């Protein structure tokens, strides 16, 4: 009798545990990996590593939040990384130190930092507008549309970058004040908080409000969830899609300017393939490619998971090529388990 009850209890908790595991598969994957890393190298757990991971994740969070919004509208963006590169190159070229001998514009006076940053954000915002136009007006599928602009933007960036007299040289010698905006930190009650983390937090907050509290936010979910319903209810489909791509473009621009300042230089290959990391982070964070589903916390978690993996695997000295294989497997595993939630059993 007693054993029957306990058996029953066991099967019940077993089932519940399985369901719970299913719903939190992504976090379990992260946890297991984290435990493995800590087991191999216990000193992984440190404030310093934690800060490094957050700092490295910062620009990626900004990019991923841009891409996440447009994935919710059933979109995608392959041009993101190239836009980051374009923004990095242009802002670096305009913010080289006065005493640096190989300046792209030798006679350019020192600009206030915000001028080039706003300029590159405007430029990438404009490319975002073009993406949005091709997708919403010309009705080209987002994959193809942004495949095209990805190549175009790389071409544009390379023409700008590879010019006499210095040719295709990395744009370095950035002014200290520019590098400080990305490399500096603020002392908050004994903790050094990197500026980058603060920017990422501000962008996260902004996007959270935008997605959850505004008409535009609700419209992107509606457009992604059921475009036809949105249209017959009077939602302006074209404007919504244009806006979401412009916002994404502006975010890539900021990320690019920060990326150049963080690294201290930029080339036409800066940002290459960042879009794939961002898309992977979104997907692992539960943003659905079929549209209408996705949260800010999911996107941020997705980026952090990847950053922990990147940093952690490097920390314990895993062969970099092997790291690629592990990352690929994690994407597939996480999404495959996550998908089980939505499959209808017949």
């Amino acid at each position, binding site marked *: 009798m007693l054993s029957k009850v306990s058996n029953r209890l066991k099967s019940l908790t077993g089932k519940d545990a399985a369901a719970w595991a299913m719903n939190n598969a992504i976090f379990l994957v992260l946890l297991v990996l984290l435990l493995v890393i800590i087991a191999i190298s216990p000193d992984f757990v440190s404030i310093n590593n934690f800060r490094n991971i957050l700092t490295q994740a910062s620009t990626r969070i900004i990019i991923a939040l841009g891409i996440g919004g447009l994935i919710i509208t059933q979109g995608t963006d392959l041009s993101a990384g190239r836009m980051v590169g374009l923004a990095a190159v242009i802002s670096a070229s305009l913010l080289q130190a006065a005493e640096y001998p190989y300046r792209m514009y030798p006679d350019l006076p020192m600009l206030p930092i915000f001028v080039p940053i706003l300029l590159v954000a405007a430029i990438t915002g404009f490319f975002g507008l073009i993406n949005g136009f091709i997708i919403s007006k010309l009705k080209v599928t987002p994959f193809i549309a942004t495949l095209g602009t990805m190549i175009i933007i790389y071409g544009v960036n390379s023409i700008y970058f590879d010019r006499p007299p210095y040719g295709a040289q990395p744009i370095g010698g950035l002014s200290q004040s520019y590098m400080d905006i990305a490399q500096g930190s603020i002392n908050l009650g004994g903790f050094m908080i990197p500026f980058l983390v603060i920017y990422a937090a501000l962008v996260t907050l902004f996007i959270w*409000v935008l997605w959850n*509290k*505004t*008409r535009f*936010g*609700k419209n992107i*979910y*509606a457009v992604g*969830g*059921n475009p*036809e*319903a*949105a*249209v*017959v*209810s*009077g*939602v302006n489909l074209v404007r919504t899609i244009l806006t979401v791509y412009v916002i994404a473009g502006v975010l890539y621009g900021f990320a690019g300017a920060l990326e150049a300042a963080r690294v201290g230089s930029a080339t036409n290959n800066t940002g290459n393939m960042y879009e794939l990391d961002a898309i992977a982070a979104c997907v692992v964070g539960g943003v659905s490619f079929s549209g*209408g*589903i996705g949260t800010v916390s999911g996107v941020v978690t997705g980026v952090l998971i990847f950053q922990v993996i990147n940093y952690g695997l490097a920390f314990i000295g895993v062969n970099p090529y092997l790291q690629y294989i592990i990352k690929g497997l994690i994407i597939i595993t996480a999404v495959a388990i996550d998908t089980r939630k939505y499959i209808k*059993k*017949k």
Partner: protein
Amino acid sequence: MQNAALKHHGEYLLEMVGISKEFPGVRALDNVQFKVRPGTVHALMGENGAGKSTLMKCLFGIYHTDSGEIYLSGKKIRFTTARQALDNGVSMVHQELNQVRQRNVMDNIWLGRYPKKGLFVDEDKMYEDTRKIFNELDIRLDPREKVEKLSVSEMQMVEIAKAVSYHSKVIVMDEPTSSLTEKEVNHLFTIIRALKEKQVSIIYISHKMEEILQISDEVTVMRDGKWIATKPAKELTTDMIISLMVGRDLTNRFPEKTNMPGETILKVEGLTATYQPSIQDVSFELRKGEILGIAGLVGSKRTDIVESLFGIRHVSSGDVYLHGKKVKNSTAEEAIRNRFALVTEERRSTGIFNILNISFNSIVANLGEYFGSTGLIDEEKCKKDTKWVIDSMSVKTPSQRTLIGSLSGGNQQKVILGRWLLTQPEILMLDEPTRGIDVGAKYEIYKLIIALASEGKGIMMISSEMPELLGITDRILVMSNGRVAGIVETRETTQEEILRLSAKYL
């Protein structure tokens, strides 16, 4: 001046006069008139292709009329977007519900015009306003519930509440009861009556005669893009409406039954599906040359029976015997090999390959038969078999290469029937074979079904239309809540008995 206008139009809330619309090669609407009085339910009827949806699309500005005028409360209107129509109090509850399933109820209702407080959406106001409308209409739903969690009828209630939230004066309901249970239909009718009280007019598009006679005040019938008649519902009978719709007296809606049931060919014992809620302990026999109807309310799991037999639904227990020999279909491929065939319920999503031609659609279930010794597809045989499908099913099409999506529903269904006959099935399972097909074409489908039974095939036919079940089947299996509530002889049963059985396990 204004008074004169009011007086002139006072009798009608909505007037569509002399509406014509031409598409290349087709006169879709020919001088149609349609006038709706305030606070009434006005049924709009006609066979598929009669021009009902075209007329409604002209009202909503999705199509531009070639000629004709539309008046709303005596004011001339011409909408160009769906939103304009909504803002002017004309709304539509769609047949395919247009909702954002991932979002909650109130997000759907206020979509496109979320109330704002400063920069942000005012969620509290949305919630309160939604509650108010729900109370008025006696809808018991949480405005914060996700739409995908709702049943079809609840989703429909949400759509109606949305129409009311626009202060609509005219609400178009397109086939609103096509997937509702008896009880849900009654709730819908209660809501419709409440709307009438508020002087809202309902344009009610449906094929279900009994319902129309029950709920509507006036009936307008269209045929071939022309206005045929507008009459008070009280003066009409089902037969009168049908003869107006088809333009001739249909003395007999069903062909003569010529099939003779023979010995038992299929025996099903204790069939139970793995993933519940679904079928439980379903047992029955099917005879050679018999048409076995399967009746039941929506949600009674009728479809699950045929899906289980066809190998596309997991079965946990139960046995199936064909000619006394045990068969196990765990995939559709096996089922086809064992001479089972299934014409699915949702023709658009699981029946036709919309953007492919009739030839492909005819041979697709039987592809293995078309590879010659070379391993390449035998085009001659394909042509021959497609021709057989077109001829024997009398499909109306210009050629074998015509895309199936461009045919009418009835002709599409004939192609699909033909597709399955090419696999030479012994057991033919038909799930709602006449759904969305107009009266004339239905008759032809019935004739085909009876002819197939006469040839000795065992036929199972799921249907929600009682007259159809009573008209052409030999026996009727009634499902209730996943279980067999009874199997009755068609000749001896009544509509009342079937309804009573449908509710047996609720």
